[in-house]
């Protein structure tokens, strides 16, 4: 799936990446309650690799901090992502990678909604429905081949370069 003969988006636009977030003293203090915020969720997904380019989702502007919403009270995380082109066939795979990464990283009590930015994809409704169906997501992540492709997207950039 990742290695297609022809690139769909031959010349993607590359965006600046956010700087490292400074660690504050209160964050290091175990006494201070430190709820999960949008920046923290963004940091978890910004370095996910694009399935076809050696670039991160952040570099391709597929994920943005402003499109991450966190409600720590209710325990809800909502992420909108923007495929680079409206007919991107990788949209479901990208969404699945974001979902798997967050499922692995966040406490299980969080409700995760991963959605396509409104108006950015031709099959927005179908992709959103598939990503929202936890039964199909569970079946997909039990599928060894698909899981391998997802895991490739989740390899941290430094070790990806080494590979």
């Amino acid at each position, binding site marked *: 799936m990742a290695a297609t003969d022809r690139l769909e988006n031959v010349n993607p636009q590359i965006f600046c990446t956010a700087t490292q977030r400074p660690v504050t003293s209160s964050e290091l203090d175990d006494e201070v309650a430190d709820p999960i915020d949008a920046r923290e969720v963004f940091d978890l997904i910004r370095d996910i690799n694009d399935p076809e380019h050696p670039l991160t989702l952040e570099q391709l502007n597929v994920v943005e901090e402003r499109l991450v919403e966190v409600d720590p009270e209710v325990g809800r995380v909502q992420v909108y992502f923007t495929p680079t082109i409206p007919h991107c066939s990788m949209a479901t795979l990208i969404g699945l990678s974001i979902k798997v990464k967050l499922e692995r990283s966040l406490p*299980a*009590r969080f*409700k995760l909604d991963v959605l396509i930015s409104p108006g950015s994809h031709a099959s927005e409704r179908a992709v959103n*429905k598939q990503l*929202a*169906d*936890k*039964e*199909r997501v*569970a*079946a997909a992540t*039990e599928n060894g081949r698909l899981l391998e492709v997802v895991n490739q997207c989740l390899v941290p950039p430094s070790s990806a370069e080494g590979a």
Partner: protein
Amino acid sequence: MSRSLEPVATLSGHTDRVWQVAWDPTGRTLASCSADRSVRLWAADAAGWKCATVLTDGHERTVRAVAFSPSGRLLASASFDATAAVWDREQTWECAATLEGHESEVKAVAWSRSGRFLATCSRDKSVWLWELTDERELDFECAAVLMSHTQDVKRVAWSPTEDRLASCGYDDTVRLHHDDGDDWTSGAVLKGHTSTVWAVAWDATGRRLASCSDDGTVRVWRETQPPDAWTCVCTLSGHHPRPVYDLAWCPLTGLLATACGDDGLRVFAEEPAAGGDGDEAAFTLVATVARAHEQDVNAVSWSPTERGLLASAGDDGLVRLWQVGEL
């Protein structure tokens, strides 16, 4: 009138999300199935509910659904490994048959009221009917393959009064199927939900159906012009902020329970005035447990023998038992 819903027991043992729970006809055994690939059978003794048996070697992937035959002798399980298995209690729960044919994940299983037919449905968009042709040898033959759904079929449920099957799924519809004397045919298509229909449940009369959906609503349908003309007589909206993954309609009390992706359990009672035979029905929310499980609630099932005893299962790996008060 609001009622209490008190916790009775918490059954832990599964090591991954629990997808479904099913009672045997005596109400003395409860089966649960899980992404940990096992089925657990729970029974109560003087000290409380315990795991009596673990069935582990029937499936290679998630066990999505379980159902007891009406006699209580057989247990069917459906798995993402594209098979359904039939377990025989008389052989101390040996796997007695494996039903193969679906092209991808099997999502649900259900026995007809006589135990003659077993229905399975799958991600491959089909519903299969298996006929138990030899009860001693446990031989099954495929009696029909119903292809009316256009997407992933999530659930099948047999009428309690006749050989009639309801199915529902990712194409947002509920569909009915019956034997027209010659062959199995698909009839009514119940449209109204705006997203995946996760489950469907019959009432005790077999003339009404309830369905629940990813759209957060529960709909009640009635057969207005038998045979096979159905109308939505009630929509319960505004109660569920997340998908409703399961519902159960109690044949003993008429109460309707729902399992929701917001971790909550809800119980609805029908307004007596509506009577159930008019063109409209009204249901009132009578009990809510907001944090019934620590994660999504996937399943609810009423005991067939104990009034108001409810089992639930969740993504937190737990099975819980609840009792409705003041019945």
